[in-house]
């Protein structure tokens, strides 16, 4: 419950003195909402670019006897660039953007901790990300032929990681030190909790990558004595792009799903502590840095392989537990929830993540047994896992965008386009994983194309003598095409909603939501809140009847847009939360 939430001004109110509406304002803002929007929009654009690069790679793999679209060297560069753009340019900043925007509002903080550091995080990520892309334009990056370009890539990637770490620290410090005085950490909403877990896990894994980058830089610049020059870079760092490390990037996706399902159920999350522990355990499972310290092929066998199996199994169990808790919540509502895009995308994200963790756990277990000539995780089985985790995060982002768009942009996203994006993302994730998984399991199609310089021209030899590899690669390419289409549909939906203002303005709480950000106008006024709410619970807007698990809560989305809309939902919250 809240004592008071006093933000009454909407987005068009008078700006705080240090904020500007002109472009300079976006460079100098200290408002977490603007910084969050910057991350969200830019990350979506970069995500589309990353998917386009990955699509090029998959298309090339459909013709195993020749590097069709790209030549051998360019193939390796685009292969790594696509992973950089997808992970550090797309998925991580996208979820960080949600966290920077939403978490302070959820926990009753006036702003994010260190708002200028958060802004520096964005512009640092933007600038170093630009340098990273620029390094490829001068034939740099892993497998690049220009030494200065390779060095630039290494420094730029370190800058990207440091910038993302800075943003994560700001979010974590906000949760730990700026939440309402009487709000305990274990009472914070699940998305805020997931953001905290993510920050903690990034803090213990990214520095390992930074240590590697420093070593690689020194060795590459001075002598190239022991890390195989530009061919050793991706081998050293590839743990960053595969499970279990990928799970770290997916933690906020679980938090977003955990926000959506109780709202659409109209009741309190069942087994709430279990959900928090499961999200935490999933985060622990993403301790990919542990795996990075082991060298292949030992990585997959012996005690290191057993550790790998344990981490993957922990992730799988965590997701099963979470799905069980969410299922119990849906059953508890005792009525059929409205099948909106947000709920469907949340459920699809959970399902795809279940498939992803099961696939990765199975692969690690098979490799630990050591019966295969080629470890399963050294084949495109790994690509399948990457596609599934990425697809799950994208689906969760669709759910989060559909859910929080009224709060972020003041309008609900178009439901048909959101549903189309959801279908494309779901089909794309499953199809994009199925082809590579089969090609890897049955035909040993290699994941890492270039193990050493001598293999640059032998990729065709590795795969051209096995049946149907091309066809399975084509399925993977089709899946990537669908994922790209999903991102394009999200972008189109955002353009229509934000730029062309399609649809009526959203009410403060169009969903009958439960967390504190929905007590504020949609969108909240720029700048820090004038008066902070006094929260004692992460779900202050949850109606007493719903909290008790009874019927009678408003169904999300019923009569919620336009002037005066959303009143039913607001009434549900009761008079304790004046808006």
């Amino acid at each position: 419950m809240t004592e008071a939430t006093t933000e009454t001004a909407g987005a068009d109110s008078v700006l705080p003195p240090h904020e500007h509406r002109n472009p300079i304002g976006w460079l100098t803002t200290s408002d977490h909402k603007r910084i969050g929007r910057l991350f969200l929009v830019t990350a979506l654009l970069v995500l589309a670019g990353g998917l386009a690069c990955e699509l090029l790679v998959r298309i090339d793999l459909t013709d195993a006897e020749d590097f069709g679209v790209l030549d051998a060297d360019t193939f390796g560069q685009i292969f790594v660039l696509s992973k950089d753009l997808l992970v550090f340019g797309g998925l991580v900043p996208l979820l960080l953007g949600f966290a920077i925007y939403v978490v302070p509002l959820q926990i009753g903080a006036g702003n994010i901790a260190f708002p200028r550091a958060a802004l520096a995080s964005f512009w640092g990520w933007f600038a170093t990300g630009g340098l990273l892309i620029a390094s490829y334009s001068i034939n740099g990056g892993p497998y690049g032929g220009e030494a200065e370009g390779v060095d630039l890539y290494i420094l730029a990637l370190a800058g990207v990681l440091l910038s993302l770490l800075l943003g994560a620290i700001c979010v974590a410090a906000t949760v730990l030190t700026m939440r309402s005085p009487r709000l305990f950490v274990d009472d914070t909403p699940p998305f805020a909790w997931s953001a905290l877990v993510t920050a903690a896990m990034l803090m213990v894994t990214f520095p390992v990558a930074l240590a590697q980058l420093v070593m690689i830089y020194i060795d590459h610049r001075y002598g190239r004595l022991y890390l195989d020059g530009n061919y050793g870079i991706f081998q050293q760092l590839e743990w960053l792009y595969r499970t279990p490390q990928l799970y770290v990037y997916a933690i906020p996706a679980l938090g977003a799903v955990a926000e959506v399902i109780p709202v659409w159920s109209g009741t309190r999350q069942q087994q709430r502590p279990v959900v928090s522990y499961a999200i935490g355990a999933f985060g622990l499972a993403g301790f990919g840095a542990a795996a990075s310290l082991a060298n292949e092929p030992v990585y997959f066998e012996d005690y290191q392989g057993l550790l790998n199996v344990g981490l993957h199994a922990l992730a799988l169990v965590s997701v099963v537990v979470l799905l069980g808790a969410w299922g119990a919540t849906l059953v508890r509502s005792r009525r059929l929830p409205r099948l909106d895009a947000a709920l469907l995308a949340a459920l699809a994200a959970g399902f795809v993540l279940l498939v992803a963790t099961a696939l990765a756990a199975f692969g690690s277990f098979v490799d630990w047994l050591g019966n295969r000539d080629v470890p399963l995780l050294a084949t495109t089985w790994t690509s399948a896992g990457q596609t599934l985790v990425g697809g799950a995060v994208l689906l969760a982002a669709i759910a989060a965008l559909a859910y929080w768009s009224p709060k972020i942009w003041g309008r609900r996203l178009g439901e048909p386009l959101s549903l189309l994006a959801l279908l494309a993302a779901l089909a794309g994730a499953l199809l994009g994983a199925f082809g590579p998984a089969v090609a890897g399991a049955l035909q040993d199609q290699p994941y890492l194309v270039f193990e050493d310089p001598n293999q640059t021209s032998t990729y065709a030899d590795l795969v051209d003598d096995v049946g149907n590899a091309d066809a399975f690669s084509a399925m993977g390419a089709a899946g990537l095409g669908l994922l790209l289409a999903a991102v394009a549909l999200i972008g189109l939906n955002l353009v229509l909603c934000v730029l062309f203002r399609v649809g009526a303005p959203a009410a403060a709480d169009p969903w009958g939501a439960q967390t504190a950000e929905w007590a504020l106008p949609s969108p909240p006024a720029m700048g820090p809140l004038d008066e902070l709410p006094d929260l004692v619970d992460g779900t202050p807007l949850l109606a007493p009847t719903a909290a008790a698990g009874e019927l009678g809560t408003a169904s999300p989305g019923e009569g919620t847009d336009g002037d005066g809309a959303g009143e039913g939902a607001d009434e549900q919250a009761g008079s304790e939360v004046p808006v």
Partner: protein
Amino acid sequence: MTAPALTPAEELATRQRPNSLFVATGFAVAGGVMLVAALIAFYLGFRNEISDPDTNWVPRGISIPNAPLVMAVVTAVLSMITAQWVVYASRRRERGHTFVAIGITILFGVAWINMVFFAFNFMEVGIGTTQWSNLAYTLSGMAVAIGMVAIGFLALMAIRAFGGEDGPEGTAPLAAAVMFWHFSVLAFIALWYVVFVVK
């Protein structure tokens, strides 16, 4: 509606809410520990791949100057004491002592960094000549970089303290800088032990 009265547990939670900068620095230190641990792990991993590392790892003809390096370690340990003096004095609003302690701590920091530079000059080991030299430069360079960040952080917080922040409530920024200082010294000692003692 009137807010319900605080329970004892809630009162405790409210009272003990830590300073944002202190918590953020704690996260940075956690990250730094992982960075240092990873560097040491990689160093020992590469060393382990060499046959008979006790004789083949460090290039022949290189003489490691133990005396200045041990002095650097001792100086760094002393700086931890003076850094703690900073927090002690600031909590008691003894501004004179606070700034003297900050000055001595930074002086010690510059001294141990200088001794590391001296050691590398003395060894005349060129970067890019052997695997050991590259790794030694990497690990020692990281220790020096962390030390420089600690010096900069403490100097910055000293400026804030000069502006009037001290006492039991205002010491947190200085305490954060001192926490990072302790980490930087321990990181240096760990890296020194691996590179120059274990070799």
